[in-house]
């Protein structure tokens, strides 16, 4: 039996020898295949990283009603005008962190991001953005403050003093000094859990003239915030700021004007707001470095400079047109709520992008600490 076994093994070996002799190529090929297996992940990739098809353009905003609005106002007309192009709106929220992660890992899937002019300077200086191609985008359709080397102004929005007329029983707060006055205007207030528009309001309440706000004296602003901290609820999302007024948890707030408009529409004239001493920000388009869409992205941005489309956006979600030409196209009944109209423009403080680009990170950390301590 053991002999049989021996013979069988020899036979196998003989067969094996016959098969491999003169067929070394196969073996080498096999080794190559093994080596390839080792690098399968990078060589083959489980899925394509960037865009499946050329002509796709991903525009990322902050979700909600802005997704269908951007789609109908900008993406659809752009697709209709450019054959083979498929621009789509994605509401994932283009945070600085995600842009940085994308750019640094070389897997950029976004073409256009909906951020602000200050953010464009901040991120641009860190090498995370493409420089604006001003040969495609029109410089003269923007005021100088609404553009930067990396950002193209998209629309205007403001932080405004909003109050509940019923809860305050007729007392009308007109300035940030009134907002800070808890004796004559008792009740809870709400401020944002972020420095934008809040530090400016605090300084105005402390007597700083609107044209002397920048550079912001952060210590002074934080001291002022601390004064009303115990009377204040801090909001994070726009929805939350609205909910606070709906539930009558607060009597006053420093809100995005778009939210104040929605509230006024929803609950009637109980909720009022003023552009006086408002803090005016410019939303901006920016393009992450190494984006797959290239010039198509700038083309899209240029198409969004059309003043009529910007007026459409005002009608739908309340964002003010940034192109000065749009002012003439705004219907009379909307002029009051257009934060970019010449009258409202004059009442507000325009944000200094340079200051934000340099100090945003430090000031935000200090603000968070001040309200948490």
């Amino acid at each position, binding site marked *: 039996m053991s002999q049989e076994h021996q013979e069988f093994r020899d036979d196998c070996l003989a067969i094996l020898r016959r098969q491999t002799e003169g067929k070394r190529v196969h073996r080498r090929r096999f080794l190559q295949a093994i080596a390839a297996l080792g690098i399968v992940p990078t060589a083959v990739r489980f899925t394509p990283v960037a865009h499946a098809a050329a002509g796709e353009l991903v525009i990322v905003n902050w979700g909600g009603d802005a997704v269908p609005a951007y789609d109908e106002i900008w993406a659809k007309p752009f697709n209709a005008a450019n054959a083979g192009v498929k621009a789509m709106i994605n509401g994932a929220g283009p*945070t*600085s*962190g*995600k842009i*940085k992660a994308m750019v640094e890992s070389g897997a950029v899937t976004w073409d256009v991001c909906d951020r602000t002019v200050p953010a464009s300077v901040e991120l641009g200086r*860190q090498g995370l953005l493409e420089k604006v191609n001003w040969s495609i985008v029109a410089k003269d359709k923007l005021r100088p403050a609404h553009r930067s080397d990396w950002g193209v102004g998209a629309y205007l929005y403001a932080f405004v003093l909003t109050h509940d007329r019923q809860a305050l029983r007729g007392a009308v707060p007109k300035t940030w000094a009134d907002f800070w006055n808890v004796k004559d205007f008792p009740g809870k207030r709400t401020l944002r*859990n*972020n420095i934008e528009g809040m530090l400016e309001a605090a300084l105005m309440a402390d007597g700083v003239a609107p044209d002397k706000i920048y550079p912001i004296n952060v210590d002074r602003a934080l001291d002022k915030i601390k004064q009303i*901290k115990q009377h204040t*609820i*801090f*909001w*994070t999302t726009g929805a939350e700021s609205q909910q606070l007024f709906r*539930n*009558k*948890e607060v009597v006053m707030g420093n809100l995005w004007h778009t939210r104040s408009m929605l509230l006024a529409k929803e609950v009637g004239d109980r909720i009022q707001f003023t552009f006086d001493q408002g803090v005016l920000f410019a939303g901006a388009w920016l393009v992450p470095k190494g984006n797959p869409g290239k010039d198509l992205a700038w083309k899209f941005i240029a198409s969004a400079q059309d003043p009529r489309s910007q007026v459409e956006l005002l009608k739908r979600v309340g964002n003010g047109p940034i192109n000065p030409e749009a002012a003439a196209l705004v219907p009379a009944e909307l002029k009051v709520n257009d934060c970019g109209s010449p009258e409202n423009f004059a009442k507000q403080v325009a944000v200094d992008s340079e200051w934000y680009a340099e100090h*945003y*990170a430090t000031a*935000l*950390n*200090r603000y*968070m*600490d001040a*309200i*948490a*301590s």
Partner: protein
Amino acid sequence: MSAAAVASSGTPRGERLYWALLVLPCVFLGLFYVVPVINVLVMSVTVPRLGLSNYADLVANPAVRRVLWTTVRIGVLTTAITLLLGYIVAYALVHTSARQRQTLLAIVVASFWISVLIRAFAWVAILQSAGLVNSALMGLGLIDSPLQLVRNEVGVMIGMVHYMLPYAILPLYANMSGIDRSLVPAARALGATPAQAFRWVFLPMSLPGLIGAGIIVLIFSLGFYITPAILGGGKTIMVAEYISVQISETLRWGLAAMLATTLLASVLLLVFWLSRFMDVEAALRK
């Protein structure tokens, strides 16, 4: 001697199976988890420049210290409350009729299904000044002005305890149902009072489950993000939210990586210490 001697007498073939069981998940985690995460944690000493400058913040930056202290305080309190309530529920689960057990378990599992986001908002609706709790208390004439139950640490802890309870109850229940049901009556028969029987027999047997649940709850509590962000109203900042702001908003990834490394290191030390402690327990029982 016994345990070690018996273990070494196991056949190699049987051992091999268990070694494979042990090693396979580790290889999986090593490849897909450890490599990517280490890659990020290393940034704590390389970003923005090589060195320990990020770790200096632990000492020098009062804001960072405050965030860490808040996190530890809330984490420990939440764990203590959750374990106490969870232990009571798990104990009732194994010492009740099948019908009551099914209902209780259904409640525990059902509460699981509500997304953490909507739960947080439901708590706001319940706890806010015009919310259910305050209206009920004021309606009963127990209080004159609304209690501040939310947008502070109280609210954060209510939300966190609520979220963590099933995480404590289910492992405790799994552990307790493995305890021999005749042991406590046996101890009673030998003359122990109910309290003594519980302390000497049931509690030691349930200790591994308690420690296991405690580890899950504490670790989770230290890393909570959405609940404190919504129920804390900006005034209660825990480390995960702080890290998130550093990553998403201020782009201080070095600081974020340092805090994450610190969190990871302290929890590992804690678990290591607890697992030694558990060993002692196991040795005492044998």
